[in-house]
């Protein structure tokens, strides 16, 4: 049974711990925020709830990228687009919830439409007054975009940098498009001034706590789903595609469908992350489509350790916490600190933070082997199998057409 494997000790324990921690946070943090009085040492201030809730959404985004990049070798430089689309779908719902409480008091049209002289609601805004519809769109829109985009790209065998760059072009084009007021999504200012969600005031403490809990649960679910995918035979196939796409074809696998599935699932996850993010930060605007944002997601993932499930989560939490802290504590110098962190991580933690942990475990295992060897017993000297996609070997995705820089030890 799946659960049997899931609770087994060893390789997958880390995943289990992560899920337990997230579920616990989903329960405990809201309680400590809402039920514990503000003076108490155990009180979690609302400020923290909002902040960490936001990080959890970023973590889900990073996790979704890891599914395609870490396991399938698709370096998407446009994952922010799926996040933003999910966010916009949620934002549209929240806009419609404002009703006649907008500054112009128009019950049908959001404020920005009124003051740009729109006469009626554009067709693509229909249905967003219903939560179920918006929730559906949160998954459907990014999923569909990924499906169509991926279908074309993977079928044409666009790989490596070429794929990365067209994903970047995609998010850049969307950035420019959403910037335009004529698009009907509020232009540069985006969607903002939200009042309530499902009838609850978005600014109320309890709502914030609930959103935090929802984010933690969504992330836990994301971890679980990702784990299910990568630990199945399909997961091995993902890695095989990353490693030698054309070889999988000669074994009869349709590499393009494999990638398409992972890409779409990942886009849906990113969309959900975006949808949870928007009510917590209170605004969604085209800045989320900025190619720089998508690159940052790649950076979080790399910092935590790609091809591991918990790595990207740790990376996203850490880098964002660092950014929050540095921008307050060292407002003039924080870029040195952050930039230095990225350089240091690459040089000293080549496989990210989780990689460091694994290395340490390997080293310990190795010590055991040598001890055992001295004692005359025989231990299988293969490295311990861990939750990480083995990425010791080259993955040619960014390698140039052919033989591009091959992995070789530096001299």
């Amino acid at each position: 049974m799946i659960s049997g494997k899931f609770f087994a000790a060893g390789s997958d324990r880390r995943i289990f711990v992560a899920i337990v921690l997230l579920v616990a946070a989903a329960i405990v943090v809201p309680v400590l925020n809402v039920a514990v009085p503000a003076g108490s040492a155990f009180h979690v201030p609302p400020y923290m709830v909002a902040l960490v809730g936001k990080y959890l959404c970023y973590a889900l985004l990073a996790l979704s990228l890891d599914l395609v990049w870490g396991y399938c070798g698709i370096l998407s430089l446009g994952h922010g687009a799926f996040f933003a689309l999910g966010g916009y779908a949620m934002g549209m719902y929240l806009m419609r919830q404002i009703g006649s409480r907008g500054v112009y008091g128009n019950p049908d049209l959001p404020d920005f439409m009124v003051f740009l002289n729109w006469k009626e609601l554009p067709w693509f805004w229909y249905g967003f007054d219903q939560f179920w519809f918006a929730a559906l769109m949160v998954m459907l829109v990014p999923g569909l975009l990924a499906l169509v985009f991926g279908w074309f790209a993977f079928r044409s065998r666009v790989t490596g940098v070429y794929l990365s760059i067209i994903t970047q072009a995609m998010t850049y084009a969307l950035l420019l498009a959403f910037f335009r007021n004529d698009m009907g999504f509020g232009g540069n200012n985006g969607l903002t001034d939200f009042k309530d969600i499902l009838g609850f005031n978005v600014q109320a403490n309890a709502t914030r706590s609930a959103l935090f809990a929802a984010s933690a649960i969504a992330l836990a679910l994301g971890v679980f789903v990702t784990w299910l995918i990568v630990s199945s035979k399909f997961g091995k196939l993902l890695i095989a595609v990353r490693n030698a796409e054309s070889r999988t074809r000669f074994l009869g696998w349709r590499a393009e469908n494999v990638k398409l599935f992972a890409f779409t699932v990942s886009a849906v996850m990113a969309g959900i992350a975006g949808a949870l993010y928007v009510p917590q930060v209170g605004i969604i605007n085209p800045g989320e489509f900025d190619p720089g944002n998508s690159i940052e997601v790649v950076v979080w993932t790399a910092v935590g350790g790609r091809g591991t499930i918990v790595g990207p989560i740790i990376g996203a939490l850490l880098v964002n916490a660092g950014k929050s802290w540095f921008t307050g504590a060292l407002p003039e110098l924080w870029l040195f600190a952050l930039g230095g962190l990225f350089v240091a991580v690459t040089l000293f933690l080549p496989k990210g933070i989780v990689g460091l942990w694994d290395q340490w475990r390997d080293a310990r295992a190795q010590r055991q082997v040598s001890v055992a060897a001295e004692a005359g017993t025989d231990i299988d000297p293969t490295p311990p199998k861990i939750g990480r996609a083995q990425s010791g070997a080259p993955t040619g995705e960014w390698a140039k057409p052919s033989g591009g820089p091959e992995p070789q030890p530096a001299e």
Partner: protein
Amino acid sequence: MLEVSNATLHYGAAQALRGVSLTARAGKITCVLGRNGVGKTSLMRSIVGHHRLTSGSVAFEGKALDRSAAYDRARSGIAFVPQGREIFPLLTVKENLESGFASLKRADRNVPGHVFELFPVLRQMLARRGGDLSGGQQQQLAIGRALVMRPKLLVLDEPTEGIQPSIIKDIGRAIRYLRDQAGIAVLLVEQYLDFCRELADEVYVMDRGQIVHTGPAEDLDKPHVRKFLTV
């Protein structure tokens, strides 16, 4: 000329070489044999500087090489034909050959005529990209490329792999020619027993990362040596 003493090599926790010692003399052909996975390639790569030994040493012309990088070893006269060919796929055949110029003085920077005598196909394909060649053609290019370097020691890891029989014979002749005329040392890994028996002045047989037999080529017919080469 080349002196390997007590070499050990680890890949992480796994040990590939266990105290290997070997000598390759100038004007002689030294052949290393052994089953799959016994460590032949690991030994060759340690000699040319692709792997750092865990312990033991490699000396060439009396100088210890252990600290020098692969390019310094190449510049001191060691040429390498690796298993798996490793030609530069996007460089043309001509450029692949010219990549061997790096270790030569400006005046010597030309492709010796015997390279094209030995492998006429290379002359026809000078402008084609190395990666487009057939497997055997690539192997010929890899050998030709090593010869451009005018080496004092030629390290060949299964050079006949994928090459048609007539050219294998030519390669044999060429190796002998290089030994006799240029007096260079040749270190050869080979699975193809007949080829080895014909050429070798001295053979080393490996098993599980160790040298288990040393002797002249004729020893290869002895059963206690043979047993290391059967399944």
